[in-house]
């Protein structure tokens, strides 16, 4: 987190720069992958079939792509001290638009889907920045109404399509890597360059840290706010396209259902404070991977899928306890030098109050 702040414009983010703050997340990801490997010995096997890579790890990346996309937008919104509850609904809308226009040329299909995401994002941004509505409430409006709009577009049915262009996002691949992974990786790189290669990221953090001070310092905080919500809308639209292409259909009821919560979770697991002021895109993506590795692991282990939510709840609680400001203080006092909060002592402390 702090490493990210110090990254100078243009500086490449080399691995040794992130570590200290990133350690807990990396350890968690490695641990979960190790558990996955233990329950399913073939977890790391990758094979090539029909010009496309297959394997559990590829599955994690492929199915983790939508949540990674969402958390990519969400992390910037949260960095400004906001939150975007509408991303799941925006996914449903953009999927519905893409499926409806699947017969048109690909550029129109994708363009329209992205445009609707952008519009949704700008709407949220205006509510937050100009009408000064709390982010939770502002995005709640679209969260409630958005799914209705999506159903309106699909006419309440699950719209299926078979257009090769749109289907590529679900079944296609580039050099064997699934298209969804390529698209998401591309978006991560573009966003990373955009916010960390320029001063944009710093301005986003400044807006979240102290909007008033930032404004006095000459940062267009309202513009920044609208921009991050707009970007979150576009990311959600991409996620919607990926999700629709994955099942070759738009399901207005279930597409992206509760994914906003997963995305927020990914960002929080990635150590980004919900209070805003700082962020790490890389760690948010790691957070999304942690969530997906967990989901895939539970599937592979043969445990009923119903365990998924309970495990997720336990992980959220563990992360909460590890990050709790009060516990950090207690822990820092009792053991001064090692700053990394380990979940184990944290959980013991948590049992007391």
């Amino acid at each position, binding site marked *: 987190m702090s490493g990210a702040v110090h990254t100078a414009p243009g500086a490449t983010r080399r691995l040794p720069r992130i570590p200290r703050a990133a350690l807990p997340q990396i350890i968690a990801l490695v641990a979960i992958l190790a558990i996955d490997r233990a329950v399913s010995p073939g977890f790391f096997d990758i094979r090539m079939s029909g010009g496309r890579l297959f394997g559990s790890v590829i599955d994690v990346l492929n199915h983790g792509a939508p949540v990674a996309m969402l958390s990519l937008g969400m992390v910037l919104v949260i960095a400004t001290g906001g939150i975007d509850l509408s991303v799941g609904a925006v996914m449903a809308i953009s999927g519905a638009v893409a499926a409806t226009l699947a017969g048109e040329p690909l550029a129109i299909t994708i363009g329209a889907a992205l445009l609707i995401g952008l519009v949704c994002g700008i709407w949220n941004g205006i509510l937050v920045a100009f009408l*000064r509505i709390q982010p*939770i409430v502002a995005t709640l*409006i679209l969260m409630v109404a958005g799914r*209705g709009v999506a159903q309106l577009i699909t006419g309440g049915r699950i719209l299926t399509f078979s257009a090769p262009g749109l289907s590529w996002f679900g079944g296609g691949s580039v050099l064997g890597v699934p298209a969804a992974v390529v698209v998401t990786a591309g978006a991560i790189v573009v966003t990373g360059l955009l916010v960390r290669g320029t001063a944009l990221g710093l301005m986003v953090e400044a807006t979240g840290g102290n909007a008033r001070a930032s*404004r006095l310092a000459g940062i267009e905080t*309202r513009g920044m706010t609208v921009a991050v919500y707009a970007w979150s809308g576009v990311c959600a639209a991409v996620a919607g396209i990926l999700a629709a292409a994955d099942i070759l259909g738009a399901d207005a009821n279930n597409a992206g259902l509760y994914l906003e919560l997963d995305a927020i979770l990914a960002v929080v697991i990635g150590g980004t404070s*919900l209070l805003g002021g700082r962020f790490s895109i890389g760690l948010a993506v790691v957070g999304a991977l942690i969530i997906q590795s967990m989901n895939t692991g539970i599937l592979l282990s043969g445990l009923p899928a119903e365990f998924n939510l*309970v495990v997720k709840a336990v992980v959220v*609680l563990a992360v909460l306890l590890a990050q709790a*400001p009060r516990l950090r203080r207690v822990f820092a006092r009792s053991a001064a030098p090692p700053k990394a909060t380990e979940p184990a002592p944290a959980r013991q402390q948590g049992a007391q109050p």
Partner: protein
Amino acid sequence: MSRLPVIVTTIVFLLGFAVCGLHFRHFASTRVVADLLTDNAYLGVLAVGMTFVIISGGIDLSVGAVLGFTTVFLALAIGPWGIPAPLAFVLVLALSAGFGAAMGALIQYLDMPPFIVTLAGLFLARGGAFLLSTQSIPVNSPVYAALVGFRLHIPSGGQIPLITMVMLLVFVVCGVLLHFTRFGANVYALGGSRSSATLMGIPVARTTIRVYMLSSLLAGLSGIIFSLYTSSGYSLSGVGNELDAIAAVVIGGTLLSGGVGTLFGSFVGVMIEGLIQTYITFDGNLSSWWAKIVTGALLFAFIAFQQILSGGVLSSLRRTSAPA
């Protein structure tokens, strides 16, 4: 000034009802009114708990999941586990109250945002419901039959079943609790300003824990109502109901930033949501998704209205103030 949103909400409801009454024959009858109350009884009880939480400056995302868990638990307890229904009710209420108290304690003692803690609660309760059973389980119990059969007949065809009476009673009792007791005053103080409340010597920790405990307890009660309403238990019941409850509370004039709101407003908010649903049912040609769109539009209208009232928009346009 602070009463104005509630008054506007009430006028909107009455106008809406009048429009429906003119539009559809037989709409303005005690039967429709009674059904409006009955069909939204579980939502009303959820909204009561949510009102407390939101006025205290928090939010509770777990209530829909607690409702779902409760229905499954009751169906299993009364059916396969052979626990008498009254005992099952007590058990499930104790369980949900404990659940809420635990969430409140986490929020209070760990300084964590209520949003994330109750999100974990949502996962846990919904996951717990899935673990119990993913089937829809019918409840066949003489107690249920008796409770469902107990209804009050009112003139010209309307019927008030037990669950509606419970809902109305919850509104009255909690209305007294919120508006006429020290606990209620503390809830407002907490939402107004947490640090001021602490400095004034208000028992912040105790109040926070009790607010979430009350919300979960009422979510459990709402689960019992839902279970009686459908005579079954299903792990997916109540999905998204936390949103409906939040929307009803906001439409009812309660500020999501805390400190301002009334229980009566939430009641009207629930009734407005019910009215939209009833309108769609009566019309017969409208699709169900219009309910979501209209609710969203109403949410926007009411929130924008409140922002204008509180001068937020004007001052933000005039001064160079920060985004919220």
